[in-house]
């Protein structure tokens, strides 16, 4: 018997008090007014000056008045849906709703599924990954991965063509230029049936980031504007590395990324009020012994919870890392790091959990890790559901029937509720040592490998209709030709 859906807000964990949240918000406004941001494009500077910001065209420094920030915050949508080619796989991002997961984007190295060897990804691997992600129920939408044998210019377009072919889930993008971004939006229009259709049902979304601290170059300004124009949800990814591109203190680092997020809101909403944005902090610390910016750390976990609290304060959807690790493989360290990061983020009320499959920060993806992360996500989803406490579930009559010294195994209450109460994991070993040895003494990572292989063998993605495929191919060819002829 299935349980009722409830808001996750009842479970939200906190690292900041209400007063601290308000203080961070106030101080962010102070930073924007006092220090401001640097904006790289003349168009951007013009737009901000026109709206009333203080602009120094020589230094490209922009100081944003508090009133402007507050005005822009009012128009940001409180929720939006990442639509999928198959509407059953839509991901509605709404306060208190269950989180939706995706793989880590941008990886172009892999651990070979047969040999475990670290090597560059190729197109064949990209296809294999898209297929696996399409086949895993715990991966809700897909982010790009790239092959070294894909064209250097236009690889984002080629990636999207492959993604549309191998999955009917929502596709999150990485763009390498404004030109290719616009081509990708046109590809999405072909899939859903036009510009207005895409606005209603955005089957693609994007992530872009300022350079911390406080630098908004043309890449992000253009992305904020273009996404606003097409109605494409944009993750404003703010990722200072605490100790280097952000203050070493967690309060300072959270203040900085909150400030950068608000600046992104201003740039976006001035041009396109109502453009859907997601608050996407990627808190990191720099290991000050080595200079490595770290994916995993308990400090990052704490800052992620703070980020979620700020997002809830603004009533804007929030995307956080679930899985992430500094480990070189899908080993114990990786499982440990991503489990606590995912739990912290999910319990803080994240709407999107990113990073499935990713290891060695953002460089590598492995099939085994994807399968493990699928398991972690579905486990965490079950945790967020909690359990129902009511007359039926109490089972007073069952307790009375069974009585002292009896057992519940064959009782009707057990039969009624056994499937609805529990989560059934795919990867956890839960039997005897004898049975374990008899079946080959396989450890966790090996079982993940087997599951990956089995899904790859059996899963059949929902194919693109042929006419859409042809139209996409035509657009991709002409776009690639264009890029080659007029770089």
């Amino acid at each position: 018997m299935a349980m009722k859906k409830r808001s996750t807000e009842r479970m939200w964990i906190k690292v900041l008090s209400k007063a601290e949240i308000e203080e961070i918000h106030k101080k962010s406004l102070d930073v924007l007014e006092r220090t401001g941001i640097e904006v790289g494009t003349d168009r951007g500077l013009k737009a901000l000056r026109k709206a009333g910001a203080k602009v120094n065209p020589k230094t490209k420094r922009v100081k944003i008045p508090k009133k402007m920030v507050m005005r822009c915050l009012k128009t940001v949508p409180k929720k939006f849906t990442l639509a999928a080619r198959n509407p059953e796989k839509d991901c509605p991002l709404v306060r208190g709703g269950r989180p939706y997961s995706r793989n880590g984007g941008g990886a172009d190295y892999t651990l070979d599924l047969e040999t475990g060897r670290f090597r560059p990804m190729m197109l064949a691997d990209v296809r294999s990954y898209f297929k696996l992600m399409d086949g895993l129920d715990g991966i809700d939408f897909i982010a790009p991965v790239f092959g070294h044998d894909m064209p250097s210019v236009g690889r984002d377009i080629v990636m999207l063509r492959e993604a549309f072919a191998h999955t009917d889930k929502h596709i999150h993008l990485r763009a390498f230029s404004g030109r290719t971004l616009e081509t990708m939006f046109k590809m999405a229009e072909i899939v859903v049936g036009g510009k207005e259709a895409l606005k209603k049902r955005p089957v693609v979304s994007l992530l872009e980031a300022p350079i911390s601290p406080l630098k908004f170059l043309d890449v992000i300004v253009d992305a904020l504007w273009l996404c606003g124009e097409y109605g494409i949800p944009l993750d404003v990814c703010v990722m200072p590395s605490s100790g280097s591109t952000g203050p070493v203190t967690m309060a300072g680092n959270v203040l900085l990324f909150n400030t950068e997020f608000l600046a992104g809101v201003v740039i976006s909403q001035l041009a396109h009020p109502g453009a859907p944005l997601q608050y996407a902090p990627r808190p990191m610390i720099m290991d000050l012994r080595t200079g490595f910016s770290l994916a995993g750390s308990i400090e990052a976990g704490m800052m992620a919870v703070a980020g979620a609290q700020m997002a809830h304060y603004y009533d804007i959807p929030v995307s956080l890392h679930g899985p992430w690790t500094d480990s070189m493989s899908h080993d114990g360290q990786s499982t440990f790091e991503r489990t606590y990061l995912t739990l912290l983020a999910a319990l803080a009320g994240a709407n999107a959990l990113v990073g499935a499959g990713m290891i060695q920060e953002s460089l590598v993806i492995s099939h085994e890790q994807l399968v493990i992360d699928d398991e972690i996500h579905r486990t965490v989803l079950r945790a967020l559901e909690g359990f129902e406490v009511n007359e039926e579930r109490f089972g007073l009559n069952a307790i009375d029937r069974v009585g002292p010294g009896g057992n519940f195994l064959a009782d009707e209450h057990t039969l009624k509720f056994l499937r609805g109460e529990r989560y059934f994991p795919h990867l956890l070993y839960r039997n005897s040592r004898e049975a374990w040895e008899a079946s080959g003494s396989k450890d966790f990572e090996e079982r993940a490998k087997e599951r990956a292989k089995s899904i790859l063998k059996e899963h059949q993605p929902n194919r693109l209709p042929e006419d859409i495929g042809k139209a996409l191919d035509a657009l991709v060819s002409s776009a690639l030709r264009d890029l080659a002829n007029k770089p």
Partner: protein
Amino acid sequence: MSNVLEEIQKDLYSGKLDGVKKGVKKALQEGLPAQEVLAKGLLAGMDKVGKDFKAGDLFIPEVLMCAKAMHAGLDILKPLLVGLGTALLGKIVIGTVAGDLHDIGKNLVRMMLEGAGFEIIDLGVSVSPEKFVEAVKANGAKLMGMSALLTTTMPSMKLTIEGLKKAGIRENVKILVGGAPVTASFAESIGADAYAPDAASAVDVARELIM
């Protein structure tokens, strides 16, 4: 070892800028040659800093404080060293490659190299192959470092090396590459002279290359 040189080393290790300046002035007043104050006071002090940093006892921000103190002392010695030819380790041109705007790694390497006594010509971010070539020529640099964070910009490293070949100066300069997606085998494949996985080893590698 004279007392004053030991004091300089101690103050340098503690990042005490004023102490180092005072010590350097005192050493010169006592008649010690500038070259000796540099080698046995400042550089010897940084060596100790480097050792303890490698051992994990000092952190990067502390190393940078020590480097600041060292440079404060060095500034006093510089005019006296000019005539003798600089005892600094050498010139290195660095930058993040074309299309890449990320520079924290490159900046960290720059700061560590400066601390170790190199003279840095920092070209900044998104540096074209032509700009790298020009800078190496103009400065007579014996070392060049390239950094990338994005895999999509790594091909620029190869283009830059080819640019140096075309300009006929590939043999005059040693090339060191690094950055999160860069690997030793990539470095080899593009004909770079060396690869370093982090800022600290970049200093060691640069030292080896300059010899």
